[in-house]
């Protein structure tokens, strides 16, 4: 158990009081006191999000504005391209893109969302990395941009097949938004930034709202009978089924975007031969991985039995003996699949779909098959 001092030092989101009133079971996460589940439990919360709609508090994540000193958003985009291997210049106003901050070794410092809001860029970064990310931005982009940490904003995600119909009642523009559209909109009269995106594999929205209005917005959304509050437990099982990386687990400073099977997120313009090839930290290594391949790769893993294979389990090529060939980086039970799901790193030679490998769990080798991700088909509205 945590000592009282530790509990007191945990930060709270603007929705902390609401979580308590909803019966949330609170746990420390990335320095915040967060709900891991509500009374419905992880299983029901997971299935609710896949069948109807779930509301997640993700206010612990960092929200930042990059405002170009020149007044031209493309200058902020060019500046940010010095830190990420993505094409930021090509993000049209009102659009959002997935990106990674890389380090000099080609590893990933954090993954993030970047939206073009017309006159500035809006960034959402991971809670555990947000202080380091902000310092990184200040150290590298302060000449070109004013870096605004938007501490006075909360962030909620509304996810699931009914997210659109729920949000349509509060935000007239919501139904016409497509996957990865992003911009300022009024939601229930509050000044929000809305993007059609999420971390569940479902259609849905992420809504940045002034901290002072967050509880009223969340309560308004929860008044709709199609919506239930969802904790971090189901957030993790949903993103795992969707094949999405959790920073610090599936990606970290030791993995390049190519090893992490995130090639799709690096546009051609930043790769060898592209108009703005390289020019980001670790470009030499990352581009070499693009050109020549990497020696290991993140893959999806399905178990042949019922036992969940969890983070840290060692992977082997054979059912007995031999040295480990890799490690599980995320694993658990997928409620929608009704089966164990995992992801981990294996040698590229063992990364082809259908390859059989083994995980060591409690001294036994369990058979796994390298499988396509997402494990559960995503339902993004493209």
């Amino acid at each position, binding site marked *: 158990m945590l000592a009282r001092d530790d509990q007191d030092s945990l930060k709270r989101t603007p929705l902390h009081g609401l979580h308590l009133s909803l019966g949330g079971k609170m746990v420390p996460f990335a320095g915040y006191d967060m709900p891991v589940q509500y009374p419905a439990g*992880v*299983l029901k919360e*997971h299935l609710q999000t896949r069948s109807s709609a779930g509301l997640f508090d993700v206010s612990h994540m960092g929200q930042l504005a990059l405002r170009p000193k020149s007044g031209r958003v493309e200058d902020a985009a060019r500046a940010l391209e010095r830190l990420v291997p993505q094409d930021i210049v090509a993000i049209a106003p009102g659009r959002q893109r997935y990106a990674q901050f890389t380090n000099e070794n080609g590893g990933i410092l954090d993954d993030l969302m970047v939206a073009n809001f017309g006159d500035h860029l809006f960034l959402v970064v991971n809670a555990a990395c947000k202080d380091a990310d902000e310092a990184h931005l200040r150290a590298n982009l302060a000449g070109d941009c004013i870096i605004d940490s938007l501490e006075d904003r909360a962030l909620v995600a509304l996810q699931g097949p009914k997210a659109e119909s729920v949000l349509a009642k509060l935000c007239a523009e919501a139904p016409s938004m497509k996957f990865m559209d992003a911009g300022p909109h009024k939601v229930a009269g509050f000044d929000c930034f809305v993007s059609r995106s999420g971390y569940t594999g479902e259609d849905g929205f992420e809504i940045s709202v002034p901290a002072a209005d967050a509880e009223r917005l969340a309560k308004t959304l929860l008044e709709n009978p199609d919506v239930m509050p969802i904790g971090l437990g189901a957030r993790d099982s949903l993103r795992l089924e969707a094949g999405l990386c959790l920073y610090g687990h599936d990606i970290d400073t030791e993995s390049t975007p190519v090893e992490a099977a995130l090639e799709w997120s690096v546009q051609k313009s930043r790769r060898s031969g592209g108009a703005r090839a390289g020019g980001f930290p670790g470009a030499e290594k990352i581009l070499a991985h693009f050109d020549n391949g990497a020696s290991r790769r993140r893959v999806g893993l399905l178990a042949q039995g019922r036992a969940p294979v969890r983070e840290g389990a060692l992977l082997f090529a054979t059912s007995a003996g031999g040295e480990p060939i890799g490690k599980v980086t995320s694993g*658990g039970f997928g*409620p929608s699949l009704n089966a164990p799901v995992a992801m981990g790193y294996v040698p590229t030679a063992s990364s082809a779909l259908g390859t059989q490998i083994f995980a060591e769990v409690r001294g036994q080798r369990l058979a796994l098959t390298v499988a396509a991700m997402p494990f559960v088909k995503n339902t993004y509205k493209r």
Partner: protein
Amino acid sequence: MTTTLYTSDHEWLAIDGDVATVGITDYAQSQLGDVVFVELPKVGRALKKAEAAAVVESVKAASDVYAPVTGEVLEVNDALTAEPALVNSDAQSKAWFFKIRIADKGELGGLMDEAAYKAHTA
């Protein structure tokens, strides 16, 4: 006539003569959340007190179930393998894990009765 005792690790034991039926408490299942997988010991296995005897996994995490006493596994509840959610719905009756022949009744002395267990989880 059976007596039910409890461990500080949240197992219950229903004792009938020299046989104990072992499961996890309702408090334990409520802390674990939705159970999705149970691994039971092999019948005939000789367990030492406090040894990991079974595994219960929720969506979130795996937990060991410890042998509350030393003895031989006489029977396991295969219904749990087929329907792990029984642990949530009926932890202290239908969702028993295994039966063990108690090697040394002296080991029961360190266990709690219901009132003591209630105080332990309060």
